[in-house]
């Protein structure tokens, strides 16, 4: 009995020693150089938008001698991603950045890292509330904000009053609900003279938006603006309005800043789009990881907001360049 107890205590002390040793090691950087090693588990390399996020992370690695990032591709397989995170843990990285292949399976990866006392930063894809509490920070953009800044610009262009139609994305999806909520919240707070005369879903689809807009036009309602949850639906509204010769001064706004949409912004048919900033998210994630390693306090609600950017004809070239790169 006694021997067992002593053995157990010895193992415990040893473990505690190793763990605390690890902690001081990475905090003070006991190695030759003060290098912070970050593991970045990314969902899929083959994605245009995400590639800018990856580029920003790589650029940070290049520009800073004291930071080294190891980036891996899960090929959209959450099982593979978990094993990649486990590899990072056994390699003893200082922090792990995860863009989950599947937000529902972020939990086990976070737990595994936490057990090894490695801070986790999740980027771009928001995990569930349970996982949110266990991570150092989530770096991403607030869908609600896309709706707010989009509506703010629309309100400015129509002079703070008028009739608008809202085109929703697929009902029940978070991005659709939040963007619409952002639209409505702003109207409620600041623009009592803007009236939502029509609201319906076109399921993110251009073709369905054409149908919806055709029907709205036939209803005889006048629209000062059409505010859509994404660019595809906004383009559908443009096509239907132009085909019927009823475009007039109608302001049309989308969200996403897709390459196709930027062309419409450039020729002036799409008035507004908003852009979720991948470079900002990538850079923000690395910066958060470094703060976590240095032992700085976690941000409020574990959330670091990377603001949406507004796209209009004035600054559209800047965004076109990003896609052409």
């Amino acid at each position: 009995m006694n021997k067992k107890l002593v053995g157990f205590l010895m193992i415990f002390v040893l473990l505690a020693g190793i763990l605390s040793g690890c902690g001081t090691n990475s905090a003070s950087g006991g190695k030759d150089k003060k290098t912070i090693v970050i593991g970045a588990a990314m969902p899929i390399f083959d994605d245009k938008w995400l590639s800018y996020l990856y580029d920003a992370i790589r650029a940070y690695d290049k520009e800073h001698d004291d930071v080294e990032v190891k980036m891996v591709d899960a090929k959209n397989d959450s099982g593979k991603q978990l094993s990649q995170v486990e590899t990072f843990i056994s390699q003893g990285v200082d922090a792990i950045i995860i863009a989950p292949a599947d937000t529902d399976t972020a939990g086990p990866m976070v737990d595994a890292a936490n057990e090894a006392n490695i801070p986790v930063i999740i980027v771009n894809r928001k995990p569930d509330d349970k996982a949110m509490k266990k991570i150092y920070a989530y770096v991403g953009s607030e869908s609600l904000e896309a709706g707010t800044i989009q509506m703010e610009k629309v309100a400015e262009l129509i002079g703070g009053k008028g009739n608008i139609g809202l085109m929703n994305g697929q009902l029940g999806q978070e991005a659709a609900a939040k963007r619409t909520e952002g639209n409505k919240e702003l109207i409620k707070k600041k623009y009592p003279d803007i009236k939502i005369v029509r609201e319906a879903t076109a399921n993110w689809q251009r073709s369905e938006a054409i149908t919806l807009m055709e029907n709205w036009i036939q209803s005889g309602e006048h629209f000062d603006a059409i505010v859509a949850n994404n660019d595809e639906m906004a383009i559908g509204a443009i096509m239907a309005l132009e085909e019927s010769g009823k475009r007039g001064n109608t302001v049309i706004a989308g969200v996403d800043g897709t390459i196709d949409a930027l062309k419409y912004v450039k020729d002036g048919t799409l008035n507004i789009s908003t852009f979720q900033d991948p470079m900002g998210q990538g850079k923000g994630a690395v910066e958060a990881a470094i703060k976590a390693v240095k032992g700085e306090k976690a941000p409020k609600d574990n959330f670091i907001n990377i603001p949406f950017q507004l796209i209009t004809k004035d600054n559209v070239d800047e965004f076109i360049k990003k896609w052409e790169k």
Partner: protein
Amino acid sequence: MSNPMSSPVSTIKENSNKSIWKESIAPFMSKYGIVFILLAMIIVMSFMSDTFLRTQNILNIVRQISFIGIVAMGVTIVIITTGIDLSSGSVIALTSVLVASVAHPGDSLIGALALGAGIGIACGAVNGIITAKGKIPPFIATLGMMTAARGLALLFSDGRPIPNLSESFMFLGKGVVAGIPVPIIVFILIGIISHILLSKTKFGKYTYAIGGNEHAAKICGINVDRYLIFIYMYAGLLSAIAGMMLTARISVGQPSMGVSFELDAIAAAVIGGTSLSGGVGTIPGTIIGALIIGVLNNSLDLLGVSSYWQQILKGAIIVSAVLIDSRKNKKS
């Protein structure tokens, strides 16, 4: 003499009254009930919205349903054989991205159209061969195609839309001939062809025979496998045609195109009186079914009904149509 006569006369009268109801009015109602539903919707809407009956609105409705209507005609023929085709929406997407990639300005229009038709026929042939020769239920075979074709579309397009189509190609979706939009013309043409195919040819007779009793059809010497494969190829071709027109209409090839199109097409067929247990269904019925969906969508948008309620109402209409359909089947 008059007294004893009176009672038989009255019974005869009663009988004939009953038989008129049983033999002509009731079948007439169950056969054309769906037409009355459509007419009732149109009449009600013409009172509720003064813009509903405008020519432009009617043209809009027919053009809006022409894509789903074309797909639904292929699906109808498949369902008559007790089959199902879940792959329509994905075949539309695959056609969309592949055809868009060869329909840029300067490309041959004929080449693009031939490629599109080829893709549809090939996907249909795979569905048909797996179903007929592999003896795999069509639900599973076409579910596989639905998943795989969508994957192929995403793979080929890298998940992104393919813009920059030639004017001549876009004419298919946006063009107007003699005041009638091209998709409507194609819709009517395919409607006529499909109707003749199903009601006037050996192919049609065999299709109903396979649906009525596949075993019996085989015993009667019908080459069931060959006809099944041909039927799925035809359905695939119609999906591809709808896919090309929709691509032209929105002037971009999209891997996300046609999501849940198959369900709308099946709904149109079922509302139009096609029985999922096979052997029953007509092309005019399916066209009416598609029109009901189109008028319903248009009306609810015109009246500004919320999208949530729109879905609930559509669901209710589909189920009621099947209810009518199952009562009809019990009677016969």
